[in-house]
């Protein structure tokens, strides 16, 4: 029997914005984050890190550290019990440096001691001598030297095609840090039988598990990775940091061991967004239609592979934007250098490309004397058309034109009239009288793939249970703050008609993988799993109890209650577990062509800025944004994702960059790495375009990444509009504006 789920019978189902189940705890300061964990008898860990981006270790003597009172273990590469390297697709990163260090801050030795101070003193007591080697820090040079991990290549259409108008440019994107407020932290607890339980910051416990147990030389079932309270992630926790170290120390000492990075260590302890150098050449006809796009994209991955190859492929796949173009030629490079390791960050390769291609679109519009939005509309890629880079026919929804039209319809903010200094660039610093302030308007539009691509077996295991506590949704998916715990409740409520739903967070031994909390994928993947598992459970219940509807009251048949909810529960056990997969994807062919992606979303931003041209200071006044979200499951959470994602794009546009000196980060703290504050935050107006997608629950799409991608080019476009400066590098600094 197949029946439609009853959406309207619950009050907190999809389409509503119920309070988060963890909201009160977080507001009271009682939510347990990884850094709050405390186990009686636990030791503290600390890490010796390389002070050079590239060095040979001449001498390493742990004796002085080991001799200190209160020190229980000092471990080096020689103590790694199993496989010496870890990494996601390719294991090329040493657990601890093996005679040579490849980046500033690379772990060399780890210590467990009675308390953190003692552990830190022991790290300082390790006798080590280095021979500094010349670091390779120029990604272009790395390309020339063929120090690369992959070279994605796209060849589509006619290389001899040409347009009447040519726009060519070179662009750079500085290195952005995810800067989640919660630092990396974790506790490893030995189980007394040779195994270990790890509770550490993460986005994907099963991937951690798959990398950890081989390095520990243990059987898979001897290691259990547990979800923990996460203070954000944004990609920083897709690669491991302290995980294997904690387990090694716990196993070596037989005691629980805690590690907690402070902010400075966090900046070297997790991967960052790839910095980019990019050449783009667009050719178009006088009618504004794109004829050919050529690009060379160099992303700097640092010394190890991590997710660099996938990020670089993504930069290539989305190097044209949501625009139709039949001739596309892209060469991308993941450079291997001694700069800080790069990996996942919100937007995953698309951020870098979008800054370049959207700047190109603006320049093309200027050449053609077309309105920037009109040029984008002329070229809009829609469902059913081939993606210009890969040739993949866009299945599912892609309402690009609707998104652009909706953005165009949004009212602009009124002209600045206030003489309140808080409304000036520079704010209460009183850096201007307001006389030299110029307003500008800019646009950014993007397309982003949703969930994992390229033939990866992407799935999410979900178990839905009905018992006397209500409905339970079991998953190993990581809640990083985005609100998955709420949306899973909503989906289960709407499908089952039962209000009481708890999300149960499981470790790796209790349920299969949910996949990563990344790629904007959990609402669709774990949410999709919850939808299908709950639907199957509902049908089982109705079939066995002879009903046609299920609600909080129980099972109904033709309008009469045939079993109360307690009676339904008593007739259990009720449980349905599924492995949910999205539509199959495929790896690229030798020309980067094929059906690599499961789905897409479009976002568009319009930024309004005021610029003090003399001092080069910018105030982002307002951002209007429209996003293709398939279907909104939780309006407040969706707005929160879009506003927060937009702000990270604003940060990249005008504030955020890791400043490097010979591979060393010189601003690894919040005093010098500038994050947008309340006073930097523009008013953000969010609208949705809802065209249900082909496989997400209720037609929903992932929403986390697109806003971060198109916000940056919109803000820079607005500054360019105000100042006439070229502004080919982000973040845009005051001197780029004032001195040109």
């Amino acid at each position, binding site marked *: 029997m197949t029946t439609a789920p009853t959406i309207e019978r619950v009050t907190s189902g999809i389409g509503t914005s119920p309070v988060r189940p963890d909201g009160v705890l977080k507001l009271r300061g009682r*939510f347990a984050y990884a850094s*709050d964990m405390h186990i009686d008898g636990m030791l503290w860990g600390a890490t010796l890190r390389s002070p050079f981006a590239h060095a040979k270790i001449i001498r390493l003597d742990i004796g002085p550290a080991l001799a200190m009172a209160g020190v229980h273990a000092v471990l080096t590469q020689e103590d790694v019990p199993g496989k010496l390297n870890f990494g996601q697709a390719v294991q090329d990163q040493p657990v601890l440096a093996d005679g040579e260090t490849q980046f500033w801050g690379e772990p060399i030795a780890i210590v467990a001691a009675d308390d953190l101070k003692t552990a830190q003193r022991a790290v300082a007591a390790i006798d080590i001598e280095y021979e500094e080697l010349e670091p390779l820090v120029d990604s272009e040079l790395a390309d020339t030297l063929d120090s690369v991990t992959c070279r994605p290549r796209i060849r589509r259409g006619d290389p001899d095609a040409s347009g009447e108008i040519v726009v060519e440019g070179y662009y750079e994107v500085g290195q952005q840090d995810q800067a989640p407020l*919660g630092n990396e932290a974790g506790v490893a607890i030995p189980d007394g039988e040779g195994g270990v339980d790890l509770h550490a910051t993460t986005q994907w416990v099963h991937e951690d598990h798959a990398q950890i147990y081989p390095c520990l030389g243990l059987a898979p079932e001897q290691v259990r990775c547990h979800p923990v309270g996460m*203070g*954000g992630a944004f990609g920083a926790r897709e690669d491991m940091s302290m995980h294997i170290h904690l387990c090694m120390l716990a196993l070596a000492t037989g005691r629980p061991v805690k590690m*907690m990075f402070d902010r400075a260590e966090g900046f070297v302890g997790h991967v960052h967004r790839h910095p980019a150098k990019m050449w783009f050449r667009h050719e178009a006809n006088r009618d504004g239609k794109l004829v050919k796009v050529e690009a060379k994209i160099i992303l700097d991955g640092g010394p190890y592979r991590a997710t660099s190859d996938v990020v670089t492929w993504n930069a290539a796949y989305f190097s044209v934007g949501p625009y139709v173009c039949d001739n596309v030629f892209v060469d991308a490079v993941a450079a291997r250098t001694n700069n800080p390791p790069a990996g996942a960050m919100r937007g995953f390769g698309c951020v870098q490309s979008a800054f370049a291609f959207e700047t190109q679109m603006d320049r093309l519009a200027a050449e053609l004397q077309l309105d920037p939005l009109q040029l984008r509309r002329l070229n809009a890629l829609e469902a059913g058309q081939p993606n210009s880079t890969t040739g993949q026919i866009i299945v599912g929804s892609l309402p690009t034109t609707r998104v652009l039209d909706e953005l165009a319809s949004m009212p602009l903010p009124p002209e600045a009239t206030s003489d309140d200094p808080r409304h000036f660039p520079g704010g209460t610093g009183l850096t201007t009288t307001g006389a030299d302030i110029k307003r500008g308007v800019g646009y950014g539009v993007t397309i982003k793939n949703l969930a994992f691509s390229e033939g990866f077996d992407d799935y999410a295991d979900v178990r839905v249970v009905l018992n006397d506590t209500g409905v339970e949704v079991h998953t190993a998916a990581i809640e990083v703050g985005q609100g998955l715990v709420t949306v899973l409740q909503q989906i289960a409520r709407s499908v089952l008609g039962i209000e009481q739903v708890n999300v149960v967070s499981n470790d790796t031994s209790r349920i299969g993988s949910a996949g990563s909390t990344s790629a904007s994928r959990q609402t669709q993947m774990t949410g999709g799993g919850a939808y299908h598992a709950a639907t199957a459970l509902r049908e089982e219940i109705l079939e066995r109890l002879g009903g046609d509807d299920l609600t909080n009251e129980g099972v109904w048949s033709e309008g009469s209650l045939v079993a109360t909810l307690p009676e339904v529960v008593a007739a259990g056990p009720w449980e349905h577990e599924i492995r949910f997969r999205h539509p199959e994807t495929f790896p690229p062919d030798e020309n980067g062509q094929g059906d690599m992606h499961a789905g897409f979303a479009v976002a568009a931003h319009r930024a309004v800025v005021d610029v003090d041209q003399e001092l080069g200071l910018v105030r982002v006044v307002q951002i209007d944004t429209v996003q293709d979200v398939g279907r909104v499951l939780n309006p407040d959470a969706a*707005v*929160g994702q879009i*506003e927060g994602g937009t702000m990270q794009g604003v940060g990249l546009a005008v504030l955020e960059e890791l400043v490097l000196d010979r591979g060393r980060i010189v601003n690894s703290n919040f*005093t010098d790495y500038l994050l947008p504050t309340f006073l930097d935050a523009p008013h953000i107006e969010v609208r949705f375009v809802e065209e249900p997608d082909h496989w997400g629950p209720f037609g929903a799409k992932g929403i986390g990444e697109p806003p971060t991608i198109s916000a940056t080019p919109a803000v820079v476009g607005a500054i360019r509009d105000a100042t006439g400066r070229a502004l080919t590098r982000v973040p845009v600094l005051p001197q780029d504006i004032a001195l040109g």
Partner: protein
Amino acid sequence: MIINMTVNGEARNAVVAGSESLLTTLREELGLPGSKNACEQGECGSCTVILDGALVTSCLVMSADCEDSEITTVEGLSTDRELHAVQRALLDAGAVQCGFCTPGFVVAAAHLFEENRHPSSETIREALSGNICRCTGYGAILRGLEALAQEPS
């Protein structure tokens, strides 16, 4: 040394090391982990507490200077039964995501509303500009507190 303080209305004492920050003492000695340690440099505001009526980042205060002080942390703003008005406003507005900055925002906003029951949007922004949120873009926080500012006294 032993430091005597009144924390959330209770007389407490803590054995503190020479340069130990109030944040460390609260978290590690007094069992109050609600104040968060995101930057420990006074930049992010996640460790904000009220010290003798003034808003401070507890990471920059030495515990040794807190003898006889009165301290209110996020844990002291609500009772088991009832949320503080600021907490309720932020909850209803969907202003909590990862929540790591939330305790600092709650304390800073509670302090603001204590001084000014109907702050303007600009005043809210300025008063909370010492608190960094990486998740929300501040929009929901502002909407929640603007709604609270509109409520009758």
